[in-house]
């Protein structure tokens, strides 16, 4: 078995979104099963001997590259320095509040079709939305609106600068629009 396959195997394991099975690796590397298994073991040993921060693990369906389990505490620190991103439910909720404010929780839930209590709390903690008053209505429900820092994220001075519904239609592409600016070129060319 030529050593030349090792870097390719390593690169494949790194880049693959899913674990790679022996069969898949055989196809990708044009090698027989024994060769693949040898190479996998070789790579594993290499990582161990060099004290690498990476390792190869076997999971359901195949092999994948992972960080060494004992380094986990360092990796959790990543969350501290990386910019946070909003989850899909949070994005949808803040979008509804931005375009429908002032709005009550019940109104947001009617639009999203699910409960939003947790999401609202997160958005308030992140200072993206704020309580702007109470609705003159049965139970005087709390009205939510977006905050100053919400606008600042997007470089807007005031709410009226948010893209209008009409602009949203023209700015966010439907599937057909995509082909226009992207050449239909396959990866191999």
């Amino acid at each position, binding site marked *: 078995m030529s050593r030349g396959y090792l870097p390719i195997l390593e*690169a494949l394991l*790194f*880049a*693959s*979104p*899913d674990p790679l099975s022996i069969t898949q690796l055989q196809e990708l590397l044009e090698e027989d099963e024994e060769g693949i298994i040898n190479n996998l073991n070789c790579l594993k040993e290499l990582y161990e001997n060099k004290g690498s921060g990476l390792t190869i693990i076997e999971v359901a369906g195949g092999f994948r590259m992972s*960080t060494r389990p004992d380094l986990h505490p360092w*990796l*959790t620190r*990543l*969350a*501290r*320095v*990386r*910019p*946070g*991103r*909003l989850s*899909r439910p949070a*994005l*949808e909720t*803040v*979008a*509804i509040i*931005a*375009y429908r404010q002032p709005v009550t929780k019940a109104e947001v839930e*009617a*639009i*999203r*079709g699910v409960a939003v209590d947790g999401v609202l709390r997160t958005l308030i903690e*992140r200072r*993206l939305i704020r309580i*702007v*008053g*109470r609705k*003159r209505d049965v139970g005087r429900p709390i009205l939510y609106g977006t905050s100053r820092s919400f606008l600042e*994220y*997007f470089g807007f001075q*005031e*709410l*009226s600068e*948010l*893209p209008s*519904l009409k602009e*949203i*239609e023209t*700015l*966010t592409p439907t599937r057909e629009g995509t082909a226009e600016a992207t050449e239909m070129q396959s990866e191999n060319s």
Partner: protein
Amino acid sequence: MVYQVRLPAFEGPLDLLLHLIRVNQVDIYDIPIARITDEYFQYLRMMEELDLEVAGEFLVMAATLVYVKSRMLLPLEPTEEEGFEEDPRTPLVDMLVEYQRFRTASEEFALHEDRQRQYFLRSEPVELPTTGAPLEIDLADLLDAFRAVLTRAKDRPVLELMARPVTTGERMVAILDRLALEEPVAFEALFPAEADRALVVVTFLGLLELIRQGAVRVWQTLSFGEIVIARAVP
């Protein structure tokens, strides 16, 4: 035997003009405007004969070329400041040079793109909690989310999602709510900047109604000064 005519596809009139300048090997700063105009029209005719749609931009440029060509037939008049009138081709040349500059930049970008595409990154990010870190939101993500909500909501007929008419009563309540939070409030501040005409009208009617009921006071400190509004002292 079938002949296939292949017209080079031009992205726009500037692209076509640069092509004509190149194949004629002429100086972009001294364009023989009559010749280039003729060839430009030949190209448009060819497009028409092939039943290709000639986009509006090409026709606008055609008109510009004819205008410049006619101006070139007249001698340049001396002017007071600069000695002579500007060469009638100058605005066109400036445009072409500017476009060419960005086109070259885009070719450079394409090389970078190619090189960068040889690097394969991890596609599945390791799941990480994201608390405490500064937030990063792309407006496009927000718009996508809203669009998705709208699409989903359209499938649920019970929901009145699109703007429903706002009533004067609602605006009266909104004004009182606003005054409960801060007062006095400037007249303009009662009208949300994003308000459409209907909302402005209804808000104004609401304000008039509140004044009529004696619920709010409205005053001006100077003539033509700011109009301010506060709740009437009960």
